[in-house]
């Protein structure tokens, strides 16, 4: 650790996000995942001679949305360039991308703790076909190509080397995925490749500026892999520096099984892609009014929403963050308030009991059929002292889609709180009588046994007594006995 402190790590990311458009970037083929190989193709995305590209406006709009969401400067004039290189998965022998004049530049993403990550640029491009290497055919010297992926719109996001360690990288990625999900422009699945992340990492002595070399790490298919790869590479590079070794530009590949990065290409000379403006496509000239129209259609973004939840509903930072981690949860929360307005209690029920019930808050949120009004009824009953906290769990565990509302459940099962003090007192007295040993120990000073008594009472009342009330009466009675 001592050595590590003498170095600074610089990490920049290069992200490729598949946009959630109906059709591909330059043709009308369906943009979808998991279809039969080569079923979503046409002359354009197969690169057949004579075919021509046409820009997908929806992709352009989604890219503009992301640019606006990250405070980037949208270039009112930009264009597509051709990146020329030969590779079997590249049907035209060039990729249509934006090089000289990207769609947007100079964005910034603010992470917690005033940490800012600057975006160098955001641009649109097309995905390549997918090479498929079936083992049997590889032996025979064959590989297969699936052109369904060819031409899917990609948003490339390039950050400045503003990240310093693995947790910052992971936080940044979580944040950026959240933004994209809010905007409904990418589903952000690293494991499916709908979001791809390459790391650019370098390490320098603290006093130095950013080194003029970097190591690029590819093949990172999960946040876990990214975290491990950053740590591995950071350690490897520092060790090399400690040994006084010379560090050079390299491209490496993360091997998930071995947990190491391996060299792919070294000392790569700048490959000459012979970029030039694609003569098949007119330049993109945007109007302020057009951008404004897109801006007006944008949803409230997570950071802003979180701030608003804190101000408007008086939530603490953690609750506000948890409730805004995706649009559906945030909407669910606010929808629920419309039925019964107690933000604090609603937040507590959603984050506590509801999340626990959901087990995992995925994008399939609400699949189990729980509606905001369900939460609102629980909150109302709690707020009005009609049920105890214990009953909330019961309500969730008894939940069956479309059968009973929480209020009906409470009524039918007689779960409502026991408000009659004499009734509770009776139960408590019984509890004390039945547990003389514990009473002795309690009175001898073992205060922890209070919870034991409360538990016993709760058991008896089936959670229908208010914990605080039980505690108060217990204390009184035990004191009297003493």
């Amino acid at each position, binding site marked *: 650790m001592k050595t590590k402190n003498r170095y600074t790590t610089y990490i920049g990311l290069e992200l490729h996000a598949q946009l959630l458009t109906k059709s591909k970037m330059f043709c009308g083929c369906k943009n979808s995942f998991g279809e039969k190989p080569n079923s979503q193709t046409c002359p354009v995305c197969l690169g057949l001679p004579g075919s021509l590209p046409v820009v997908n406006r929806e992709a352009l709009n989604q890219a503009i949305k992301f640019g606006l969401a990250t405070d980037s400067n949208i270039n009112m004039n930009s264009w597509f360039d051709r990146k020329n290189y030969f590779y079997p998965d590249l*049907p035209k022998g060039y990729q249509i991308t934006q090089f000289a004049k990207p769609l947007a530049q100079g964005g910034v993403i603010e992470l917690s703790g005033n940490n800012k990550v600057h975006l160098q640029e955001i641009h649109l491009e097309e995905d390549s076909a997918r090479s498929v290497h079936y083992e049997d055919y590889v032996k025979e010297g064959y590989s297969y*190509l699936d052109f369904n992926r060819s031409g899917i719109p990609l948003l490339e996001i390039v950050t400045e080397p503003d990240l310093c360690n693995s947790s910052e990288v992971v936080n940044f990625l979580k944040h950026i995925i959240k933004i994209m999900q809010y905007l409904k422009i990418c589903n952000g699945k690293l494991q499916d490749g709908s979001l791809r992340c390459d790391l650019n990492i370098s390490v320098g002595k603290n006093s130095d500026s950013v080194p003029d070399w970097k190591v690029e790490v590819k093949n990172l298919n999960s946040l876990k892999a990214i975290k491990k790869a950053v740590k591995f590479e950071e350690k490897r590079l520092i060790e090399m520096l400690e040994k006084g070794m010379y560090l050079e530009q390299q491209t490496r590949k993360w091997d998930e099984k071995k947990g190491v990065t391996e060299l792919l290409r070294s000392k790569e000379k*700048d490959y*000459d892609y012979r970029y*030039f403006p694609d*003569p*098949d*496509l007119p330049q993109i000239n945007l109007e302020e009014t057009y951008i404004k129209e897109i801006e007006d259609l944008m949803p409230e973004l997570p950071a802003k929403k979180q701030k608003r939840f804190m101000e408007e509903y008086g939530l603490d930072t953690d609750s506000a963050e948890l409730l805004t981690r995706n649009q559906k949860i945030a909407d669910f929360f606010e929808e629920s308030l419309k039925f019964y307005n107690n933000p604090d209690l609603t937040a507590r029920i959603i984050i506590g009991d509801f999340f626990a019930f959901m087990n995992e808050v995925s994008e399939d949120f609400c699949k189990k059929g729980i509606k905001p009004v369900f939460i609102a009824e629980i909150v109302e009953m709690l707020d009005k002292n009609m049920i105890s906290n214990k009953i909330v769990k019961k309500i969730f565990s008894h939940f069956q889609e479309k059968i009973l509302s929480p209020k009906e459940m409470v009524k039918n099962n007689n779960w409502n709180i026991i408000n009659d003090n004499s009734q509770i007192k009776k139960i408590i007295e019984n509890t004390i009588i039945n547990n003389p040993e514990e009473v002795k120990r309690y009175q001898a000073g073992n205060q922890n046994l209070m919870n034991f008594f409360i538990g016993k009472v709760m058991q008896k009342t089936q959670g229908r007594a208010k914990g605080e009330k039980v505690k108060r009466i217990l204390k009184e009675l035990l004191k009297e006995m003493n």
Partner: protein
Amino acid sequence: MDVYKIPLLLKNKKLSAQKFISDKLEQIKRADNRYHFTLSLFAEYALKKAKAIDNKIARGEEVGRLAGIPFGIKDNIAMKIGKTTCGSKILQDYKSPYAAKVIEDIEKEDGIIIGKTNMDEFAMGSSTEYSYFHKTLNPWDTSRVPGGSSGGSAAMVSAVDECISLGSDTGGSVRQPAAFCGVVGLKPTYGSISRYGLIAFSSSLDQIGIMGRKIKEVAYIFDYLKKEDKRDASMAHPLSGPDTFEKLECRDNFKIAVPYKIFENKTEPAIIKSTNKIIEKLKTKGYKVEEVPVLYDQYYIPIYYTIASAEVSSNLSRFDGVKFGLNEKSVDSFREMFVKNRSEGFGQEVKRRIMIGTFILSAGYEDKFYQKAQKLQRDLSRRVDEIFTSYDAILLPTTPTTAFKFGEKSGKPLDMYHSDFFTSFANITGNPAITIPAGNGENNLPIGLQLVGDKFREDKIFGLAYRIEKLIKEINL
């Protein structure tokens, strides 16, 4: 018989499509045996189409507005029928699974595609000698080239009456062979006919063009092929400019600009003589003919070859052995597959241009060549637009020479490139241009007269060309 009369004759049952087409096929076969202008002939398909037209008429149904008109199509325009070879070995067996927009339009209007015509490989060349398959002979003198790259299309219209052919014009590839073969050739405004399905040579210069024997025939066809197509983003949306055929005779007060200096120094005397005679005749008929300065003439060839080579080096990258190529199985790596297929699949001239273009686009040279050429292109285009605020057409010869002999220039690329001298500037600026037969020069070889017009105002140059076509009969050229 002018081709635009064919649909009406069919409709009035004065002509049988089957009889007409089978006769035409015989005529084409005979001519093709002598001049070799086709790469493929669709006799069965053409007869089937003709039968369908006859049946429609017999049933009293409407037929399309190109019904029965025979078409020859340059082999770089994609069709689902037959092969689309681009005159190249690398595409010798290529069957396109889709058809170009122009083909869709011709078929929709019941036009009859008879065959595909020979061309310089991937449209690079000015003599059709660079076709991988065979040479095409000039029907006026079989020891001479028909011009290129659309040499097959020009020779076909020259040798066979009552037919139309389509070519592509990147630097003069429709107009130069049309002039060499003594026919009318139109290169429309860039963006007025969809390029969808035209196998790209130079995307920003390519334009599909039309050849016929008469102005009126070409105008008639142009009106049907000029159509918006959302699949071609480089087209004008919406398409402006009036229809041309109906308006051919409407106007008669054209103002003509002549850049005398451009051709006086570099042109065969017979061509200058013919051009001047026409100018004099126009003047005596009361047309306003004025000299205009020559703009950037020393740069036409450099701008054209810079842009075209750069773009073609990228456009032809897709022929890499994966989907297109020679099925070279004995390779050990991707690289070897690419190299082998491209080395063996492309001819010399294509390779030369790919190499020039690759060099032009390489890192460090962007602003020296391609960007500079584009800057000049924009500048020239603006200056040319200015001319059209005062004039209806620029008049100049189509080519500096008449048809040359086989082998005369094929080993001398720079001489060959010079053939485009008068034609390339209309591609650089995107303006429409038409060549019309203007008599014959030495050895009785045809001469072409060129009219360049304002963008999307083909109607004006058609109108003037139509007048000149008539006047020429009064001149002893």
